[in-house]
C-alpha cells in the first residue's frame, strides 16, 4: 500500500516539471474547382469509446450575420458537431478561429492546455474533420496514448479535402 502511494506521488510530481508537447500539422490542399470556399476544420480528440474528449481547434467563418451565417454551417462538421459542437457556446477561447487558406498549418499545444490537461490516462484518437461549402467532407484519425511517456508520432493522408495530417508527441 505504502509503495503504491509513493509511486503515485512520484508520477504526479514528475509530470508538471516538464510539459509534454503536442504538435499537429494539418495540410489543406489547393483545389482546382469552379467555386472555392475555405474549409471548416475541426481538430479534436476522441476517447477509445468514441466519446468526445477534447477540442483543439475549430476554424469557421466567425464573422457574424443576422442569420448566424458562420455558425449555420457548423453542423456540416458532422462528427464534431454531434460529439461536441452542438453543446458548445461558441466562440471558445483558444479553440475557435477563422478559416485558413490552402497550405500546411502547424498547431502546437502542451499538456497544460486546458483541454488536454483534463484527459485521463488512456488510449485516444486525434480526429481532423474538414468540410467545404459546395465541396466535400473528409475525416482523418490518428491514434495515440496519453499521457506522453515516450515520443509518439502518427500520420494520416487525406485524398480530397485534407492533405497530410501529422501528430507528434514529445514528453
Amino acid at each position: 500500500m505504502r509503495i503504491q502511494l509513493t509511486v503515485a506521488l512520484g508520477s504526479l510530481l514528475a509530470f508538471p516539471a516538464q510539459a509534454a508537447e503536442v504538435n499537429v500539422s494539418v495540410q489543406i490542399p489547393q483545389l482546382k474547382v469552379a467555386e472555392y470556399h475555405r474549409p471548416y476544420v475541426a481538430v479534436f480528440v476522441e476517447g477509445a469509446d468514441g466519446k468526445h474528449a477534447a477540442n483543439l481547434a475549430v476554424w469557421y467563418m466567425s464573422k457574424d450575420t443576422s442569420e448566424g451565417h458562420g455558425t449555420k454551417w457548423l453542423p456540416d462538421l458532422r462528427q464534431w458537431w454531434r460529439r461536441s459542437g452542438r453543446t458548445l457556446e461558441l466562440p471558445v477561447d483558444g479553440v475557435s478561429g477563422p478559416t485558413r487558406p490552402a497550405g500546411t498549418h502547424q498547431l502546437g499545444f502542451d499538456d497544460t492546455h486546458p483541454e488536454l490537461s483534463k484527459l485521463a490516462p488512456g488510449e485516444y484518437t486525434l480526429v481532423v474533420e474538414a468540410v467545404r461549402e459546395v465541396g466535400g467532407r473528409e475525416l482523418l484519425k490518428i491514434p495515440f496514448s496519453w499521457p506522453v511517456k515516450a515520443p509518439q508520432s502518427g500520420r494520416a493522408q487525406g485524398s480530397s479535402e485534407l492533405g497530410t495530417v501529422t501528430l507528434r508527441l514529445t514528453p
Partner: protein
Amino acid sequence: MKRTSLLVLAIAALLPLGAAAHKQWIIPSQAVVNGNDVWVTFDGAVSNQLFFPDHVPMRLDNVTATAPDGSRIELKNASTGKYRSTFDLQLSQPGTYRIANANTGLAVRWDTPGSLAAKARAQAEGKPVSGPGAPPETRGGSLRNASLEDLSTKVPKDARNLQVTQTIGRVETFVTNGAPNQTALAPVGQGIELAPVTHPNDLFAGEEATFRVLVDGQPAAGLEFEIVRGGTRYRNAQEDLSATTDAEGLLRVTWPEPGMYWLETSVQDDRPSIPQATQRRLSYVATLEVLPQ
C-alpha cells in the same frame, strides 16, 4: 359488357394493393441545423415513390409542430398543391422539434338491404360475396375518417352489420436546432409512437439506433416495421428493411447508408376507446435523416 366487367374486376383487384402501397410522409429540408434565425421547410404528401410527390398532397389540417419547450408553434407559408403540401418552421429555440400529422377517426362499413340481397344472389350464383370478384352491388355503404356525429347523421337507418373501426394514425418527423433535447418527444400516450433511446436526430450510417415503440404510451412487442430509404425512383429495388420490436418494445435498426428513411408500422386490436367501435387500427410513420460517418 364483358369488357366492363373485366375492368371492374381489374379495378377491384387493384384497390387493396393501391391503398397499402401509398406512403404518407412529412420530410424536412434538413433535420440537423444551427443558427440564430434558422428555417426548415417541409413537404407532406402521399406517394408511391419516396420521397417524390406523385399521388396526392397531405392535408395540413391536423399537422402540428411542437417546439423544444413543449409549446405549439405556427406553420408558416403553408400551402397545398396538386401533389404535395409545403410549410416552413422558424426554429427560434435550440433543441428538438416534433412535426406530426396525428389523425383519429372512424372507418365505418355497413350493409344495406340492397347489398344483402346482392350478396345472397352472388352466393347463389357461386360468385364471391365480398372482396375481389364480388359484384359491385354487394358493397354496402362506408365512411372514412368519420366523426362520432357522422355515425348518427350519415349512416342510414336501415344499415345492417354495422362495423365501426377506430383509426389512430401518426405521421411525423423531427428536426433539431443546436443540441437535441427530449421535451417535444414526450409520448402523447395515444396510438403508436417512437420513444427515443437513440435520439431521432442522432442517426449515422453503419450505427445501430434503438427506439422504444409505444402503443398508448406502453411498450409494444412484436410490431413489424417496414423501413425504406428515400430515392426509390433511382434504383431498381425498394431495398426495404424490416425490423420487429422485441419483448421490451425495442426496435433496433442499423442504417446501411446515409439518407432519409421512411419507417412504417400498423397494427389492429380490439381496444377502441369509444363504445360504438368494435376494433381499432393504429398506424405510424416516421421520416428520419441518417447522416454519413
